[in-house]
Every structure is written in C-alpha cells, then in structure tokens.
C-alpha cells in the first residue's frame, strides 16, 4: 500500500503548456478535438513512469497563489486540474471558487484514507462550473479526529455528500446541519472505507441486536 499516492512531484517534464482560460483543453473543448478522452496531451514522459502531475498555471491560480501563498498548490494531472489546499484555507477557497470563479456546482465530495500518513485523510471536492464548462478538484489533508468546515452553506448538495463521507470515514464536518449516518444504520460502529476496516468486518454487536442473528457473514 504505497500511500503517498499523490505527492507533489513538482519537477515536470516540460510539456504542453496548460494555458489560461482553456486549461483543461481536452474534455472541455468547446471547439473540439474530436477525440474527447482527455489524456492525449500530457502523455509525454517515458512509458514506464507514466504521466506525472505538472504545475497548473492560469490567472486563476496566480490570483489565489498571490493571495494565499504556500498554503495552496495547483497542479494538472492527465488534463485534470486540482488544488491542494491547506486545511485552514478550505472554507475561504471553496467560497471564493463559487462566488468569484463561478464553480456553482459541487459534483462530489469524497475522501481517501492513508493510514500511514500523519494527516490520514484526503478530502476531495470535485467542482464544476457551468459558465466555464470546467472542472477543478480541491484537496486537503486532515488528521484523524480533526474536523473540517462544512460546505453545506456554499452548496446545499454537500449535505448528503458530507454525510456519506462522515458515514464512511468518520470525518467530522463542522456546521453541518444534520451530520449523521446515511447509508449505514444509525447505531453502526466503525467507518467502513477506512483502510483498517476489513472487507469482511462487521459491527457484530449491531447485527446481533438488530437482526437477531449470530453474524452477517
């Protein structure tokens, strides 16, 4: 389980500049390269290594970098842009992305668990802008037990999405109006999508009490 999945890796192969406005050229392509599949462009490096994240440069990035400095990194991988943001900047960045950059649609909120890391969780917001026809991901790292500000007040759709992240990872969202389990039963113990939760593992106690059977297996 190599968990440092997406370490920055800044030294980029000097490849096709991802440029302003149309950064994200491939899929967005209002005009066109017929082949939609984004990857085409960044496929520069040698085969075995695979593509690597390259810095993402655009006016948008410049603006925020000047504002927030080192708390924010912007990269592109396979034509998809993402910010890696310090946890403390999260509410500001998300709100600014919506209000100023028109990322009006929160596609998804999810997380990933890296048990060996100090800050165990990656929380990911996948955003989309209808006016710009463009996607961006915002990522942050938080430690187990730490909480993160809820974005329900920014995108109402975050309500259930955050509940699911809470349900599956146990990440607390501050200011969420009704943070409780959504897919699993209310009394369930454990957070199944954490890496230390085995695939056959169950809350035996819950099963015995509520289903009246010895084990769900």
């Amino acid at each position, binding site marked *: 389980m190599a968990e440092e999945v*997406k370490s920055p890796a800044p030294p980029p192969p000097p490849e096709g500049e991802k440029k302003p406005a149309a950064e994200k050229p491939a899929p967005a392509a209002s005009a066109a390269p017929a082949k*939609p*599949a984004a990857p085409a462009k960044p496929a520069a490096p040698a085969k075995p290594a695979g593509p690597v994240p390259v810095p993402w440069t655009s006016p948008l990035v410049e603006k925020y970098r000047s504002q927030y400095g080192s708390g924010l990194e912007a990269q592109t991988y396979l034509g998809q842009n993402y910010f890696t943001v310090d946890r403390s900047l999260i509410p500001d960045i998300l709100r600014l992305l919506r209000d100023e950059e028109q990322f009006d649609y929160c596609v998804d909120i999810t997380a990933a668990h890296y048990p060996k890391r100090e800050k165990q969780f990656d929380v990911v917001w*996948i955003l989309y802008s*209808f006016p710009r026809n463009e996607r961006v991901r915002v990522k942050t790292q938080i430690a187990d037990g730490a909480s993160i500000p809820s974005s329900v007040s920014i995108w109402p759709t975050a309500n259930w*999405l955050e509940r699911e992240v809470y349900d599956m990872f146990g990440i607390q969202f501050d200011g969420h109006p009704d943070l409780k389990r959504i897919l699993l*039963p209310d009394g369930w113990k454990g957070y199944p*999508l954490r890496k230390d939760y085995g695939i056959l593992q169950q809350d035996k106690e819950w099963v015995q009490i509520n289903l009246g059977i010895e084990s769900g297996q």
Partner: protein
Amino acid sequence: MNDVSNRALSNLDLETPDKTYLDSNELVINMGPQHPATHGVLRVILKLDGEKVLGTECVIGYLHRGVEKIAENRTYTMFNPYVDRMDYVAAVSNGLGYCEAVEKLMNVEAPPRAKYIRVILTELNRIASHQLWLGTHALDIGAMTPLFYTFRDREEILKIFERYCGARLTTHAFRIGGCQYETYAGFEKDVKNFLAFFPPKIDEYEALLTTNRIWLERTKNVGVISGADCIALGVTGPVLRASGVQWDLRKAQPYAAYSEFDFEIPIGTNGDTYDRYLVRMAEMRQSLRIIEQAVNGIPEGPIMGKVPKVIKPPVGEIYHSIEAPKGELGYFIVSDGSTQPYRLRVRPPSFVNLQALDIMVRGLLVADVVAVIGTLDIVLGEVDR
C-alpha cells in the same frame, strides 16, 4: 441560493408536533421501505398536515453493499462487473463510465470501432432506462397500461443486449480498453430494425399520456424546481434539463464518440413533472438519432485498444463522468500503481438527485410525493451502492 439551502436543510422535527392551529397534530407516516411506489427500498418519512406534506426525510441504505469497499479489494478487471449492479436498469452506462475512467487513468484510448459500439449500446440502454422510468412513473400516477407497453418494447433492446453479450440486464458489455466482443452477425440489422420499430411506439406512449387530461393535471406544476435550485442541489440529467438548463455531458464534455454525432439536447421550461416527462420522451427520440448515425457510420477496425493483460494504472487520480440516463455518473479513482484501485468513488446521479425530493414535495399532497419520486427516476441500487 441560500434560500434553497435553508429549505433543504430545515430538518424534520419528528418529536414535537407544533400546534399551530387548534390542537391538530401532524401525522407522521412512513412511506417505505416496503411500499409499491418507492421503486425499491426507499423509505421516506412524511410529515403531513392532513394530506399536505410539511416535510420529508429520506432514509436510505437498505440496499447498501459497499461497492466502494469491494472495489478496493478487487483488481480493476474484477471490479468491472460490479458497476453493473449499481444502476441495474442502465448497466451499460455504468460500465462505460467505469471503463473510460480507468482508460483515462491508464492514458489509453479505445479504438474508434469500440467507441461506436459503446455509443450504440449505451444509447439503447438509455432508451431502455427511460422506458422503465416511463412505465413505473405512469404506474405510480395510476396508469397501469403504459408499463406493459414499455416492457414489451424494452424487450427488443434487451434481446439485442443478449445477443451481443449474453446478458440482458447486468450486461458487463465493455472491457477496459475497448469491447471484448465483436458485434454478432446481424447486429446492425437488429439495431436498424429497432430504429424502425421504436418511433411508432413512442407515439403510442404519447397517445396514452401526453394530452391525457388526468395526466396533465397530475403532472403540470407538480414538483417544480428551478434551474438554480437544481444546480445548487447538484441535480443533473433530465431533471436539470427540464428546468431549462441546457447541459448534457455528451455535449459539454464529449466522451466516447459523442462529439461526432449530431443531436439536440431537449430542455423544458417549467421544471415540473410534465416537463421532465416531455424531456425524457424527447431524449428517447434523440437517442434514436444518435444510434442511427452511429450504426450507419460504424468504422471497421480493432475493438480492443493496447492495454496490458494486467491492468496496472500508474500512480495518480482521475475523475471521469458521463451522462448516464439519470444524470452525471462520475468515477473518482485513486491509483497507487497496484492492480487494485486504492480508492474508488462513484458519484451516483440517483443519490444526489434524491436529495431534491424534500424541497420538491413540500406543500404538495401525498399523491404528488409518489409522482415526484417517480419523476426523479431513482434506482435504489445506485442510491445505496
């Protein structure tokens, strides 16, 4: 938008009925999980004043199978059939989204012929999914007959699937890198027959419903949601389009071979149940257009791209989404360079769309709740995963 958030967030206070007038209490009833009109095991707690809905709360998860956990314990290839089990009425779309996401992660592309086959099957599946929606939606509103008509015609599509890949529902039609099966002899003929067969059938459904007075009364101005509300709530697919937002991933960010086809995105104006009905009916006709172009222009060539036997994408992460019949279906995959996804997240359209139920039904009657659940076109297998 704050307006939406407030409405969407005001949660049910089930314990303390507020006694606004006289001492009449609200009635709290439990619709589901065993209920004929909840399309599976959806449980909706309704707070009613007489028959008027004061608030709802959805309780989901009865069908939760932990698909995302399973993904982390299967290789990319092994996980492929599992995605069919999410939105089981549009299994081909799920497979397309998953295969394309992994291909993108591996930086390979399916050959053109495979893309065309994918488009044909996916669009056929979209029609099948819309047919099922139409039948059950009409049944919810009390019209029994359309259900059987749509099932009769859906059969023709399922036959094509069956001849192509041996399965009718959970098809597992595509592989990472292309398609496993070449089209069978007579595939094009079957599809063309369907193209000729189906338009009169749509007319038949429309004859039963489109101008039916009762249907109009039951669907017009029911479950109205504005485009802005849709976007704020992340609602996509026909529901969004019926609210007047002309947005379809097939056009906005074309995938597979969609950029090569000429088709329109039907939209509605009022965002009510009737508009959603019209949009989906129009989408079926547009799908036929796409299929027609695809089957006439299908190129020769290989059907499998250059992918290794063992799928081992490089370290990295990708988000790829497609326009499933129900809305934006996205896959967010984190790879650690091994043969198994480190993390695989499915962005299910049904799950997100269902969230809008609450603000759509407030102030309506119980009968409308059923209509709105139907018009959202949810599949519980996908909501719960």
